[in-house]
C-alpha cells in the first residue's frame, strides 16, 4: 500500500488541509489523550466523510455518526497498541467509514449498488469485528449503568472511572466511615456485574 492515494472525494477546503496533522502526531496525541489532536483529527477528516455520505444518499447526521464511530475505532486500535501505519490514517478512516456506511445502507434496506466503489481501500474487517464486539460491551454497560440507578452509578463512576479515593467518596456521600462506603461500593459493584452479565 502506498502513501499517495488520491481520492476524488478528498477535495476539502484549503485552510483545513493546511492544518492536517501528520499521522504520527495523531497517534502520539491519541496515546497521550490530547484534546488538541482530537480537534485537528476531527476538523481535518470530517469533511471528507461528510462528502462521501452526502454523495451516497445520506445526510449530515449520518456522516457525523459514522465519522465519530470511525474515530472510536481508531482510538481503540491505537490504545490497544496495534495500530501499524500500513496505510495513511486518512485511508484508514475513509475505509472504516466506507464499510460502516455500506453496512448502514444495507441495514436500511437501501440500494447499495450505486455507492461509489473506490479503488484503494484498506482492509479493515478485523478492526470492525473487534469494534463490533466492543460496541456490544459498551452498549451493555451503558444499559447496566442506567438500570443501576443512584447513588450506585455515581459511586461506581467516581471510584472506578474517575479514580477517586474511597475517602473522597465517603465525604461526598456523607458516609459516617469509610467501611460503610466500601460496603456500599461493593454492593453497587455486585449489582452492576449482575446487570451487566444478565443482559449478555
Amino acid at each position, binding site marked *: 500500500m502506498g502513501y499517495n492515494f488520491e481520492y476524488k472525494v478528498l477535495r476539502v477546503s484549503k485552510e483545513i488541509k493546511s492544518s492536517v496533522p501528520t499521522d504520527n502526531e495523531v497517534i502520539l496525541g491519541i496515546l497521550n489523550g490530547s484534546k488538541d489532536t482530537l480537534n485537528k483529527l476531527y476538523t481535518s477528516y*470530517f469533511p*471528507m466523510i461528510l462528502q462521501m455520505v452526502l454523495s451516497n444518499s445520506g445526510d449530515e447526521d449520518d456522516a457525523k455518526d459514522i465519522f465519530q464511530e470511525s474515530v472510536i475505532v481508531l482510538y481503540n486500535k491505537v*490504545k490497544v497498541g496495534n495500530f501499524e501505519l500500513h496505510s495513511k490514517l486518512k485511508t484508514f478512516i475513509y475505509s472504516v467509514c466506507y464499510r460502516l456506511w455500506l453496512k448502514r445502507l444495507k441495514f436500511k434496506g437501501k440500494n447499495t449498488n450505486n455507492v461509489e466503489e473506490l479503488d484503494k481501500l484498506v482492509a479493515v474487517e478485523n478492526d470492525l469485528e473487534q469494534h463490533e464486539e466492543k460496541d456490544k460491551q459498551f452498549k451493555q454497560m451503558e444499559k447496566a449503568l442506567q438500570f443501576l440507578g443512584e447513588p450506585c452509578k455515581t459511586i461506581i463512576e467516581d471510584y472506578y472511572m474517575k*479514580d477517586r479515593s474511597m475517602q473522597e467518596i465517603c465525604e461526598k456521600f456523607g458516609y459516617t466511615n469509610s467501611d460503610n462506603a*466500601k460496603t456500599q461500593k461493593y454492593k453497587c459493584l455486585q449489582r452492576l456485574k449482575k446487570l451487566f452479565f444478565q443482559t449478555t
Partner: protein
Amino acid sequence: MLATFEEIVFSNNIKNVKMKSEFELISQIDAYLKGELTPEEHAKFEVLRKENQAIDHKVVEHQNFISQLADYSQRKELMASMESIHQTLDVKSMVEESLPNSVIVKRLWNKYRINSAIAASIALITVFATLLSTGYFSKLDSSDYESMRRKMEVLQKSQNAIINNFSITKHPKGPTSPAQFGGTGFALTQNGYLITNSHVIKGADSIYVQNSVGDSYKVKVIYEDPKYDIAILRIVDPGFTSLGSLPYTFKKTGADLGEDVYTLGFPRDEQVLNKGYVSSLTGYKGDTVAYQVDIPVNFGNSGGPLLDNKGNVVGIINAKQKRADGASFAVKSKYLLKALDSIPEDSLEAKLVLNTKNSLRGLSRTDQLKKIQDYVFMVKVY
C-alpha cells in the same frame, strides 16, 4: 484484616466464600489494583495470588470488568469531546462546499421530481389537447411522408407583387391576396377540366389556378378522391374559353421501372422542370397506387404531371419521403383514370373526354416542354 481474610481463604473452598469474605476480597483487590496498599501489603498479596489460583482468577476477572468500565468511560469521554468539537464546526457551509454540483442536482431532482413530473404531464396534455383541437393530427399523413403542396406564407411578398401586377393589368377580378397553399395541376381536357392532388385543395375556401404566363382563373372542385389523392377541378371563370387541344395523352399501363420521366411544377412562382426515373413500381411502404420516382421535388410540386419521354402522362407527383433524397412518389395514371371513371355522371357539367392524340411524340424535350407548359397550372388555395 488481612489475617481474617487469609484464614477464610485457606479454610474454605473459594466457592463457599460467604458474602462478607467476598466483600473483603473485592475490597482487597480494588486496593491492590489501585495501588492503595502499602508496599508490604502489596507484596504479601502478590504472594497470595501466586499461591492461590482461585484468588488469582478472581483478580483477573475483576480486573477485566474494571477495564470494561474504563473503556466505557473513555469512550463516553471521547464521544463528549467529539460532540463539543462537532458543535464548533460549520457543517452547513461544509455541506455546500463539499457537495459536488451533480449531487445538488440529484437532491433537487429527488425533491422536485414529482412536481416536475406533474408539470410535464400537464404540459404534454395541454400540447396534445391543443393539437387535437386544432386538427393538427388529421393533417399528418405519416411521420416521414410529406405531401408536396406548398405553404405560401414564406413567399408572400414576391407573390403578392406578381399577383397584384397581374390582377391590375390583366385580370382585375383575380384574387389580390396571396394564397395560403399552393400546388400544381394540369389540364385533363380542353374544356377546362384539371387534375391535381386532393391534399392540395384540402380545406380550401376558394381555388384559383394560374398558368405559365400569369393568367388566373377561378376553379371549382368537381370531384375528390382522397384514396388516390386525386382531385378534379374545372375552370369556372367567365374569362375562360378553351385550352386548345391537349398535346399529351394518358398512358393506361403506366410507366416501367427505370423509365426516364420528368415533371413540371410550381415549387416557386415559376414553372420548374425536374427529371428523373421511375425507381420503384410501388410507393411509400409498398403502396401499389404509386410509383417511387427518383426526382428532386419540393413543396408545390404536388399535383404536377409525371411524363415519359414520349409525352404520355404516367402519373401525378404527390409526395416525397422525408429524410431520404430522391424518394418521391407519384400516383399512377391508371388510378387517375380509375378516379375519372368513378366521377358521378351528374356532377359533370360538361363532357369529360380525354385526349387520345399525342402531339409530343418524336419532339425534343425542349419542344415538348414548350407545348406542355401552357397546360400546367399553379393551383392556389385560399
